[in-house]
């Protein structure tokens, strides 16, 4: 077992489960898989022997592990895509047709853009922090963010 006990797990779940779910949904476009990934991320946290200096590190670690797991899933999903993905698409999660439509548009953005958008606007990380988190150069993140904004605007306005 790692450095966390059940009460800290409960805290962590309350604080970060939605964040992990959002990142996973964005990257997999599949709620079932996103939920699996969320669970696995917490299991990893619980079994991880790493000692974190503070909560910011835990959050960053969780984001990174989630992104890696999503990446793994993407890499393997092309292998196993035998049933209609339509049936499992995350759009079905949304009740309102407008939400579904916008979510579909967002899903069509490249993963790197979605992740940068999410981390910058939703989690309110700064560009240098995102760069550190994703192991990219600051300029790269700035470019991705700029392109992501343009793409998102273009897609949503074309709606």
């Amino acid at each position, binding site marked *: *077992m790692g450095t966390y006990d*059940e009460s800290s*797990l*409960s805290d962590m*779940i*309350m604080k970060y*489960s*939605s964040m992990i*779910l*959002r990142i996973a*949904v*964005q990257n997999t476009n599949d709620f079932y898989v996103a939920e*699996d990934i*969320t*669970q*696995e991320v*917490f*299991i*990893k946290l*619980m*079994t991880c*022997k790493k000692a974190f200096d503070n909560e910011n590190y835990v959050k960053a670690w969780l984001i990174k*592990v989630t992104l*890696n*797991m999503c*990446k*793994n*899933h993407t*890499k*393997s*999903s*092309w*292998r*196993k*895509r*035998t049933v209609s993905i339509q049936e499992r698409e995350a759009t079905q*999660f*949304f009740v309102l047709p407008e*939400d579904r439509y*916008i*979510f579909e548009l*967002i899903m*069509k*953005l*490249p*993963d790197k853009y979605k992740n940068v*958008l*999410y981390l910058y*606007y*939703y989690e309110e990380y700064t560009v240098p922090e995102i760069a550190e988190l994703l*192991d*990219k150069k600051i300029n790269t993140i700035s470019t991705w963010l700029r392109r992501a*904004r343009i793409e*998102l*605007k273009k*897609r*949503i*306005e074309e709606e």
Partner: protein
Amino acid sequence: MDDNSINKYLELMSKVKYDSNDNEKLFVSITKLLNNEDNIQIEKLNSMNTTSMIGADIYPKRHSLIASIATAAILFVLLLVILFPDTITSLYERFIGVSPTPASQTTPNFQTNYTATPILTPKKTPFQTEQQTPSPTVRNVYIRDLTKNEEILNNIYHTIFPDRTDYIAYWMDDNIFWAPVDQLHYRHLYCIRINSTTGEVISKRYDISYLEDSLSYRIISINGVTYLALATNTWEHGELYFSEIVNCETMEPVWNIQDLYPDNWESYKVVLNENGIDLYHGERLDTYLVNFELVRRIPYDELIYA
């Protein structure tokens, strides 16, 4: 944040969440899993931190002990060879009658530059079949010594599957062994052996996963940086493709097919050539028949520096 599209995005993402009930369910399922002694997943996660990179988790669990002993024995012999090379050579000559082949000759010949050059004829191994006929003009490799190669392969594999530490990628004779043997995804177990000379798959083991028909790769060097280009092809109810280029030094993917075609990347097949890729679009005529059309040729540097 006056951008309306961003506001819409934030509004939508805020609807994706776990409520307190979901959190509770999640907590219960995680604690159940963590407390389940038979859960292989957890055992593996726990063992990941202690499994050596050259350890034998490449085999199923029941073979892990044998594999560990074998690994230890190999390491011991290697240590003897390193410490007492002359003694080993004389003993070898005495009992076998010929001098052992120097390591440099048994290791596949790597080319320092990025040119297609005939390379060492691969030795026949028990895993090779008639289909693995070497095609020396189609492969480019980059000089590395054995240890460095193993390290690179491990790093490459680790890059592609960043969370997997329970695998090993290593080099033996003419084969690169990429053997994660664990789940790429928890529903899919696989192990694959690749002929390092031809790049062809020699053998594979699957539990649930679908067939992986081919995997081709090239190690290329551009402006002093080494990259690994990978192209895979799978079919089960039709063909699916994936291709990617990884920077071997930073271990970062620098390009993948999704960059070009984010919406329908599965339909594009990549053939890795000497200077770049040939990109084919596969139009499905029926379940098992795909008509390929060459879309374009793109140099590697154009992909990498895009």
